């Protein structure tokens, strides 16, 4: 029984980690808290629903399409709206992204009604066996896919020129211009990448959770906790914390019952905020915003 709880926790933890990377990056790089990040995940799930459920295409293949569409959406929202907030006060990003979230969710309610949809895969029932525990193939695939995407994004930031430009713009917007970096474009690029990762997480989670316009908001609570637990702006931290959060939830629901999942998660969250705000792998000097 313990083994099954651990497996469930780890598998869902991978998805949570991928869902959080974009949010943590946007906060770490630009100091913006994107309350619409949950909506990006929801949109990714709907893209999977429309393409696979209606056109019969394998959900995993939908990931690149969802990432591309969400990249464009994230890029435009940042370039048109959020970049202006950077010039005023960053805490306005909370109010502004709350408004954007309202818009996106309501649009989907109008388009697809609020009832739940499901995204099924041919191998939905397939599962590997490990001892007396089951490892559902779809969840395992989703979790591994999430780790691969996270690793690629981490290498992009650490190794490539435009990745370093993103980190530089995060630390000092004015001086990064002196280096020849155009912060507005870099921020839009970061926001686009963050949205794309959220879209990928959306597609992967559509195979596990029921799809509805309001699914994004339930993700948001988890994303908050994992971001701060992992350390703001830290990709490795988000992945590690994703697994930790997955395990906490899995054990909380196993021992205390499903509805205590959230309460335990938030209590852990408030404790982290108070005693170790820099999180597990928080990088010094990042996340302080300019």
């Amino acid at each position, binding site marked *: 029984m313990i083994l099954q709880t651990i497996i469930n926790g780890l598998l869902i933890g991978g998805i949570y980690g991928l869902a959080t990377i974009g949010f943590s990056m946007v906060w770490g790089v630009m100091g913006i808290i994107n309350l619409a990040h949950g909506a990006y995940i929801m949109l990714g799930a709907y893209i999977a629903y429309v393409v696979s459920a209606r056109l019969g295409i394998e959900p995993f293949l939908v990931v690149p399409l969802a990432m591309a569409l969400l990249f464009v959406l994230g890029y435009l929202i940042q370039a048109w709206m959020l970049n202006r907030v950077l010039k005023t006060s960053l805490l306005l990003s909370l109010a502004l992204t709350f408004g954007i979230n309202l818009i996106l969710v309501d649009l989907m309610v109008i388009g697809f009604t609020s009832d739940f949809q499901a995204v099924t895969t041919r191998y939905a029932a397939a599962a590997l066996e490990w001892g007396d525990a089951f490892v559902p193939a779809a969840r395992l695939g989703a979790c591994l896919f999430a780790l691969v995407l996270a690793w690629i994004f981490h290498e992009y930031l650490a190794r490539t*020129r435009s990745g*370093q*430009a993103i*980190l*530089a713009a*995060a*630390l*000092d917007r*004015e*001086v*990064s*211009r*002196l*280096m*020849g*970096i*155009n912060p507005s474009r870099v921020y839009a690029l970061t926001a686009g990448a963050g949205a794309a990762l959220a879209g990928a997480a959306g597609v992967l989670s559509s195979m596990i959770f029921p799809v509805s316009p309001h699914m994004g908001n339930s993700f948001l609570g988890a994303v908050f906790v994992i971001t701060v637990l992992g350390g703001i702006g830290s990709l490795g931290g988000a992945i590690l914390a994703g697994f930790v959060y997955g395990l906490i939830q899995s054990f909380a629901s196993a021992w205390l019952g499903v509805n205590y999942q959230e309460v335990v998660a938030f209590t852990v969250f408030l404790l982290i905020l108070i005693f170790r705000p820099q999180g597990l792998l928080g*990088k*010094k*000097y*990042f996340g302080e915003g300019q």
Partner: protein
Amino acid sequence: MSLLQVQGLDVFYGESQVLWGLDLEIGAGDLVALVGANGAGKTTLLKTVTGLVRQRAGTLSFDGTPLPAGAEDRVRAGIAMVPEGRRLFAGLSIVENLRLGAYVRKDRAAVERDLERVFSFFPELAEMRSRLAGDLSGGQQQMCAIGRALMSAPRLLLVDEMSLGLAPVVVDRLAGTLREINRAEGLAVLVVEQDVELALEMSDRAYILETGRMVASGPSQALRERADIRAAFLGA
């Protein structure tokens, strides 16, 4: 024909005017100082030259051609700045900061050569090259900031308040290194300084700014002898 030509520069912050009709000229290979009281507008002039601030009137030309509007493009034209307070990318290492200095350059091999050249100017930085810039002392940060600006292979280096908050012995060393680079490679340098004595000692020519207006300019040696300047600035 001068490298940098500034004519009739007016700059405003909001509604209050900060610079009135400034003229300034820097020849290739000159080491020029810009001194003046705090709040005289020295940093504003530098920020206008680098494009971080837009002037309301006046022209800026570099190598005879007008400068592009954005700061991002002026570094490509060959203007690099060491900002006041150094402002390194604290969360990145020394070598990452230096590489970011060469962000606009495409020639990989030349960038690597320049990296070693910077470490030759500042050997202290060489052995702690992977240390976070935020963990360095003031003097080390200043060296790294100068190195970062040099990495963009500029033709004009602007240095803002190099001595602020540094021990005199460190300031002497950095002034010496700047002088050396200027002579060895003919790199034009504009130094903005609070420490008037230091500025006039290390520069060929100097401009003196007083509440946004140019009040004096000329060879540094001559300015040091002028009684009014000694009284106002050198406290002799």
